[in-house]
């Protein structure tokens, strides 16, 4: 049986609220938690596979050129070496999210430092690593293009990515207050703690890959296309993924090279990227130059918004960081000018890093809004509230829901915002200058096609989908949806994920995993409920399911009895429809931060930080909060320490490890506070839930940077706000 729901109209029934089990939204522990805390969850590189051998990548040492010769023979003769492979199918760079086909391939032409050129396979990891270091690859270098702001570069301006409305120049000229500034954000690395890794094994023509991937439905097609085989012959398993944050959206070098190598040597092959390889060969977030123009009248009402972004990418890649994604709808203003420009460089491929677009676009826009608030002498919270649009300012579509004002008010109250002295350098604690700052949060909301099979049997419920749980709580929230709908205790629900043999989900990315797959599970459960109701001779709405029993009209029947003639299994399908187009959908929120800036050293400490978020129905208050903690911490990193630094002479990433690329550590992060606004968004999904995984980063860094200004009067327009930049202004 299939239950197919197309989201063509808002679903205001709030069916989950009418259920009796009482688990939906509850802060339950993760279903797979015990496996993870005891070290028993099996990640990609850990599967016990017989006869495994090991592969290590050999990579380009120049930024642009061609490979002229690979001296394989001496390495092939080394101890334990099984093969040296420079197959044409090796990837230039990983696939972009949802690409569904192979990315650019071929190890002869070099496009960036670190590009994989060959793979060495040996009996042991130590032998493979040593042999890979010995392999001599001769190359002929060409001139590389490395500086995104070089004046000679051609700027591509994709047609669909520009907006012009009214007359911004005129608005700027007539404004009572205006801002016209250039801001910069550096490249970032997703840096999931589990490096990309795969174990590939062939059985005849059938390939099984245990990999660390976010989007299996797409990854299978990408891998098959890259190898030139049929998708039906590819199975990918990824039940546990050690974080992704965008870097594992598309198929990457590990899976493709391991598959080629395994075929070549006729044995299973494991290939894990080293941490340096993760930095250099998987996706980076593009650096950006952003010019923001804001024109406001005497009351601080925006009359004009200009946001022009310049980002970079490798030649031949479609994706470019959608910097201005939220600028289109965040604030009202009649005159608008949004520009998106791309330059082509010989640097590591640019791709999705948590909240592509909003992470840096919102951060810069919200820094500019702070500057405007100060110029106009209006409280930053008030300034934002005055500029919330009634409808989408670029097309008049209604918003599916709009919680920005509520988030701002709630945050200001919880954070005691009124205590803030608007005059910089007015609060002090010894040699520390204290400041408060805030910013709005917004992230577009998306629903994606998803399928899941739900089976109700006398023994409980089983949910199956190829959806992944990359730390996002998928195992738990899908089980909560089913447990609620079918009246089961959580222990009776088994969720099986991360296997391409199961019905396709949309994968984890774009914050759409839980709402989309959750909706597929919901659709299946509604049908199962109908079957049960039919058996009991009542209508579905009158059926109460709780603790494994069905109750209707004073009859209480064990479900096992109703299922005596076999389990009920339904394939739930959710398909996006008109609600994705008819209304503007976004999640909203607000960040508040308190920082201390050391007057002597310019060190910045985040003392307090609050995020208030509205993302429709929260499916699990505990795991959702953790997602927000994660996003906000990415924000702390963006604000203070994270920056990919390229050697201007060669393009090499010089800080390609954790000692030099500074992720926030425990001591950098205070007890962050997260608050959710009660919301149901009927347009978003039949479970009224929206995405939550990326909202927590979308604008977060600005609240910290704005707090730095409030503390010490130094405005940093070139992220991150490192000591040198602050000290120069102190």
């Amino acid at each position, binding site marked *: 049986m299939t239950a197919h729901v197309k989201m063509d109209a808002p679903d205001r029934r709030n069916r989950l609220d009418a259920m009796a089990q009482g688990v939906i939204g509850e802060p339950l522990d993760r279903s797979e*938690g015990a496996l993870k805390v005891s070290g028993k969850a099996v990640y990609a590189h850990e599967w016990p596979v017989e006869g495994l051998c090991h592969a290590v990548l050999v990579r380009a040492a120049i930024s642009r050129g061609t490979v002229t010769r690979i001296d394989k023979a001496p390495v092939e003769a080394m101890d334990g070496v099984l093969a040296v492979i420079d197959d044409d199918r090796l990837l230039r760079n990983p696939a972009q999210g949802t690409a569904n086909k192979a990315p650019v391939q071929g190890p002869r032409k070099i496009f960036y430092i670190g590009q994989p050129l060959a793979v060495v396979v040996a009996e042991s990891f130590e032998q493979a690593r040593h042999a890979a270091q010995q392999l001599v690859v001769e190359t002929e270098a060409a001139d590389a293009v490395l500086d995104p702001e070089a004046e000679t570069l051609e700027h591509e301006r994709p047609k669909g990515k520009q907006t012009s409305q009214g007359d911004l120049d005129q608005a700027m000229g007539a404004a009572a207050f205006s801002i016209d500034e250039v801001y910069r954000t550096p490249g970032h690395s997703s840096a999931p*703690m589990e*490096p990309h890794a795969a174990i590939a094994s062939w059985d005849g023509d059938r390939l099984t890959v245990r990999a660390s991937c976010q989007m299996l439905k797409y990854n299978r097609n990408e891998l098959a296309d890259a190898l030139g085989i049929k998708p039906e012959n590819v199975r990918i398993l990824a039940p546990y993924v050690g974080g992704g944050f965008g870097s594992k959206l598309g198929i990457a070098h590990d899976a493709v090279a391991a598959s080629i190598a395994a075929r070549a040597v006729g044995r299973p092959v494991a290939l894990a990227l080293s941490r340096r390889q993760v930095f250099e060969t998987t996706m980076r977030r593009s650096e950006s130059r952003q010019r923001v123009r804001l024109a406001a009248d005497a009351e601080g009402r925006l009359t004009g918004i200009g946001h022009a972004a310049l980002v970079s990418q490798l030649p031949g890649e479609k994706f470019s960081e959608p910097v201005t994604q939220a600028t289109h709808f965040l604030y009202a203003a009649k005159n608008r000018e949004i520009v998106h420009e791309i330059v082509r460089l010989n640097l590591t491929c640019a791709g999705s890093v948590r909240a592509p677009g909003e992470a840096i676009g919102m951060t810069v826009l919200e820094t500019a809004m702070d500057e405007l608030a100060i110029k106009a002498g209006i409280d930053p919270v008030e300034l934002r509230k005055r500029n919330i649009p009634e409808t989408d300012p670029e097309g008049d579509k209604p918003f599916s829901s709009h919680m920005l004002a509520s988030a701002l008010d709630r945050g200001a109250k919880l954070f005691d915002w009124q205590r803030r002295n608007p005059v910089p350098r007015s609060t002090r604690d010894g040699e520390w200058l204290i400041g408060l700052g805030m910013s709005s949060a917004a992230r577009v909301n998306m629903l994606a096609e998803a399928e899941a099979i739900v089976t109700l049997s006398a023994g409980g419920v089983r949910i199956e989908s190829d959806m992944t749980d990359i730390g996002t709580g998928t195992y738990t929230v899908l089980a909560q949806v089913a447990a609620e709908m079918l009246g089961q205790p959580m222990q009776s629900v088994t969720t099986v994920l991360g296997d391409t043999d199961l019905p396709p989900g949309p994968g984890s990315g774009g914050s759409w995993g839980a709402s989309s797959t959750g909706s597929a599970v919901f659709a299946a459960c509604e049908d199962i409920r109908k079957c049960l109701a039919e058996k009991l001779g009542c209508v579905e709405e009158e059926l109460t399911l709780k603790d494994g029993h069905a109750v209707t009209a004073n009859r209480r029947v064990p479900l096992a009895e109703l299922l005596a003639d076999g389990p009920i299994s339904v394939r739930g399908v959710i398909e996006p429809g008109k609600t994705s187009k008819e209304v503007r959908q976004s999640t909203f929120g607000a960040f508040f931060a308190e920082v201390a800036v050391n007057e002597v050293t310019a060190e910045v400490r985040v003392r307090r930080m609050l995020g208030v978020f509205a993302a429709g129905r929260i499916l699990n208050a505990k795991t959702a909060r953790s997602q927000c903690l994660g996003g906000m911490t990415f924000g702390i990193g963006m604000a203070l320490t994270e920056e990919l630094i390229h050697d201007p002479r060669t393009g090499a990433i010089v800080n390609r490890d954790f000692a030099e690329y500074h992720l926030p550590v425990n001591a950098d992060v205070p007890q962050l506070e997260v608050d959710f606004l009660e919301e149901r968004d009927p347009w978003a999904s039949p479970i009224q839930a929206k995405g939550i995984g990326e909202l927590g980063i979308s604008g977060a860094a600005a609240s910290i940077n704005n707090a730095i200004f409030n503390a010490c009067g130094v405005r940093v327009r070139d992220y991150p706000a490192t000591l040198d930049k602050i000290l120069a202004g102190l």
Partner: protein
Amino acid sequence: MQTDLTINGHTYALNADQRTTLLDALRQHLGLTGAKKGCDHGQCGACTVLVNGRRINSCLTLACMHDGDEIVTIEGIGSEEDLSALQQAFMSEDGFQCGYCTPGQICSATAMLEEVKAGWPSHVSDSLDGKPRLSDEEISERMSGNLCRCACYPNIVAAIRSASEASS
């Protein structure tokens, strides 16, 4: 070459390349994949295990240097059916998301609590002698060698705080 190791109370005669790190010995040779490889360079803490009671980064040491040593990995701290107080607290405080840094965090915290009990000071302790009080600041400082990109830091601190309160 052969190295005799005691791991989680069991003895193992390891026969591996001299270049094999303790981490790779555990993961590749002994089937103990609880310890994770996040960087292989001593920069993330995912590979933390206890050697003779002390926490170390197992990627930074060669297996053959540990002949005769007593090693405890996450598998020895508590099993799925019999979790330690810290493991339990990580569950209830949601001290992890993807779970990849988690075994390292828990091994590290297990040893860290012993260090505090033994009176070892840290960068944020009030004085070099005397008993450090296990404030949130102390926990954060002492756990900063264990990176978590999912960024569960506030929950990790809460988990360690609650486990240590429960035990004292």
